């Protein structure tokens, strides 16, 4: 049996090279690992080692040959006792590396059939929203309690769910969100970590690979930046990279967005950062009912979920339905108020400004439709588009920075999907394009406000006020 030795590719981009020197001649015996030739690429001279053993039966490409295409047969090895005369070699360049021949590509235009086309991205379809049965008791609950209840319920239901993070157990949570969990579930399932975000985020993802369902609390998402590599490179991508074999059923949660008077490193909104990443689900609720229902869905979801809470909302109370198993579907926006004049789209703390503005605008005769996105990836554009088809105008509200914001994405998508329905440019109300200042007056200026929302609505409705 003879073995063909092919011109090797010695770099990811190499297409051809020069056969500088043969270090063996016909009739020599070689074993695997012997250096048999030197090849010049555009970058370096490289040695070629034999992979098989045998006798050099025939040197097909002579020393000094230039521009030898990768995968061309350059020599043939035969077994001891075989005759070199039996060797037949196809000396033409290999078909595999051949460019499709075109006489004059300029004239014939781009060859569409030969380029595999990019398949269409799947169309997003949001699930139906949860319904609260008639007569359900509503209980006033803080966002903090709602989140805790969601974790407790899921931990009762599934022994694979556990919580870890800094100060989550004995201290009962830096912001008291995990209050009582250590007492109910014990130290095996409610785990205080050292201050080592990159390490415990990675550890959590590994545990998720192995089938557990970790809830990793970041004391705030500012500190998740220490761990963002594990969130994106490990959690978000592994399902795809493994061809669908490995999943990361993990929830990364904690407060996100500006807090009060804590300065540039502790006061920022990462919504758009995570929403950028395929493979993640990103949730950012406003109300306690949504916080509870979405966190329960997030814990059950087989994907990595980044769950962005807000410190300043923890103490705010909302009605939460008293149901044995209240869940809210991921990826479904909520029309908080129906209206015909303008669509305001927001999420998380942005909803506070949007709600305040809506109340004033409605009072002054503007019929606002208010949408709480709740989930930022996948983004429920069908709900937003449906609304804008009706109102023709849209204002987005968020605390994040303007460039590459959630609002920027919505504006772009509305141009794609609802251009003909728009009667005015989409306007974004965002945090100012600055690191968060500490001084009280500057901090106030850096944040968005209900006033700015009203001004934006006036602009898109061409109102003179």
């Amino acid at each position, binding site marked *: 049996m003879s073995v063909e030795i092919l011109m090797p590719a010695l770099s990811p981009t190499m297409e051809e090279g020069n056969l500088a020197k043969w270090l063996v001649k016909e009739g020599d015996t070689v074993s695997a690992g012997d250096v048999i030739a030197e090849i010049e690429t555009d970058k370096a001279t490289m040695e070629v080692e034999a992979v098989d053993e045998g006798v050099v039966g025939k040197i097909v490409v002579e020393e000094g040959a230039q521009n030898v295409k990768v995968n061309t047969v350059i020599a043939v090895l035969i077994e001891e006792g075989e005759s070199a005369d039996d060797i037949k070699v196809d000396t033409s360049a290999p078909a595999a590396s051949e460019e499709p021949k075109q006489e004059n590509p300029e004239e014939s235009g781009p060859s569409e059939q030969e380029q595999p086309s990019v398949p269409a991205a799947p169309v997003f379809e949001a699930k139906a929203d949860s319904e609260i049965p008639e007569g359900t008791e509503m209980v006033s609950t803080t966002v903090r309690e709602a989140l805790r209840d969601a974790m407790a319920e899921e931990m009762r239901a599934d022994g694979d769910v556990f919580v870890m993070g800094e100060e989550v157990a004995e201290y009962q949570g830096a912001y008291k969100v995990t209050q009582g969990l250590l007492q109910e579930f014990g130290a095996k399932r409610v785990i*205080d970590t050292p201050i080592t975000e990159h390490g415990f985020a990675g550890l959590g993802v590994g545990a998720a690979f192995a089938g557990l369902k970790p809830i990793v609390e970041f004391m705030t998402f500012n500190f998740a930046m220490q761990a963002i590599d594990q969130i994106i490179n490990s959690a978000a991508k592994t399902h795809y990279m493994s061809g669908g074999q490995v999943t990361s059923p993990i929830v990364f949660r904690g407060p996100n967005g500006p807090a009060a008077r804590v*300065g540039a490193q502790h006061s920022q909104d990462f919504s758009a950062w995570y929403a950028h990443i395929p493979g993640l689900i990103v949730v950012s609720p406003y109300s306690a009912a949504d916080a509870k229902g979405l966190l329960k869905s997030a814990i059950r979801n087989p994907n990595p979920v980044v769950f962005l809470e807000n410190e300043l909302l923890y103490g705010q109370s909302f009605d939460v339905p008293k149901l044995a198993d209240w869940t809210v579907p991921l990826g479904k926006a909520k029309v908080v108020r129906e209206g015909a004049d303008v669509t305001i789209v927001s999420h998380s703390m942005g909803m506070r400004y949007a709600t305040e503005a809506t109340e004033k605008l409605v009072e002054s005769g503007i019929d606002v439709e208010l949408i709480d996105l709740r989930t930022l990836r996948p983004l429920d554009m069908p709900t937003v588009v449906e609304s804008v088809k009706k109102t023709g105008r849209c204002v987005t509200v968020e605390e994040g920075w303007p460039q590459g914001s959630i609002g920027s994405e919505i504006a772009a998508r509305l141009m794609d999907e609802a251009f003909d329905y728009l009667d005015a440019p989409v306007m974004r109300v965002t945090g100012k394009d600055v690191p968060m200042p*500490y*001084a009280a007056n500057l901090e106030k200026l850096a944040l968005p406000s209900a006033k700015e929302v009203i001004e934006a609505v006036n602009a898109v409705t061409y109102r003179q006020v």
Partner: protein
Amino acid sequence: MPKKTDAAAKASTKGNMPAFTKEEELYAYKEMLLIRRFEEKAGQMYGMGLIGGFCHLYIGQEAVVTGVHMASKKGDASITGYRDHGHMLIVGLDPKAVMAELTGRKGGLSKGKGGSMHMFSNEERFYGGNGIVGAQVSLGTGLAFAAKYREEDTVSLTYFGDGAANQGQVYESFNMAKLWNLPVVYIIENNKYAMGTSLERAASTTDLSKRGESFGIPGEQVDGMDVRMVRDAAERAIQHAREGNGPYILEMLTYRYRGHSMSDPAKYRSKDEVQSMRSERDPIEQVKARLLENEWATEEELKDMDKDVRAIVSEAADFATNDPEPDADELYTEITV
């Protein structure tokens, strides 16, 4: 070149207690008292709503920065985390400007834009004031890299906490610092707790002075409540680094009397624990006792000194209360150069 073994032996020899001269005792006393009174005032002003956000007080740990500073020289760089007020006062920054930063006013060290956790001074080579636990360790290592690159004989004094000692980048930095023999002294302020987590609950081994062992970095555990021990150890460490022998670790055994920040009720430790530290180990009381015992100062003189310090602090508080907030135009300035 100091030998590691000599240094370690010296530190552990009880009879060989490093002594201070009268001037040194008086200096240490006054500086520590300034930090103590400043922090007490800051706590009070926080309670009045004049200071917002987080405010991490240094009360109890004063001997660490004071002793290290006494062993350093002008031109040495320093960097720490958010518990930074003492570090700034000790390098000589104006208490008025520090306090005004705490209240977020125009005259603050960062013009009110940084806050309690973020203050800097190029002049004193103080690089913050950093809010992300552990980040200052790599940054401080970079300050040492610059010193070596420029062939300057300055040292980087890189402070961090016992909790920060568990961050990965600390060990990445240790490795590079020794690999390239960078002039950095790592000063671990082990006050026993990282927020509510005691060192024992967060660390598989609790002798932090040994955390550099596998990199070949010498380390010492130091009584961080005794300013003389701190200065003595810091002299050895700084000399080691300055003479080109690379990094050195000083684990300062210290204690914070207050909660982690103003909003921490500190229920994770007993009142007795705090009380016994205060009554038996207080860094300021220790110096005071020696001053009196040696008759280097009378009670009266020490009272006068306290009065002077209180006057400095009151003046700082008044300034920080009355100084105006930064102009609105400051919002968009200094984002990029």
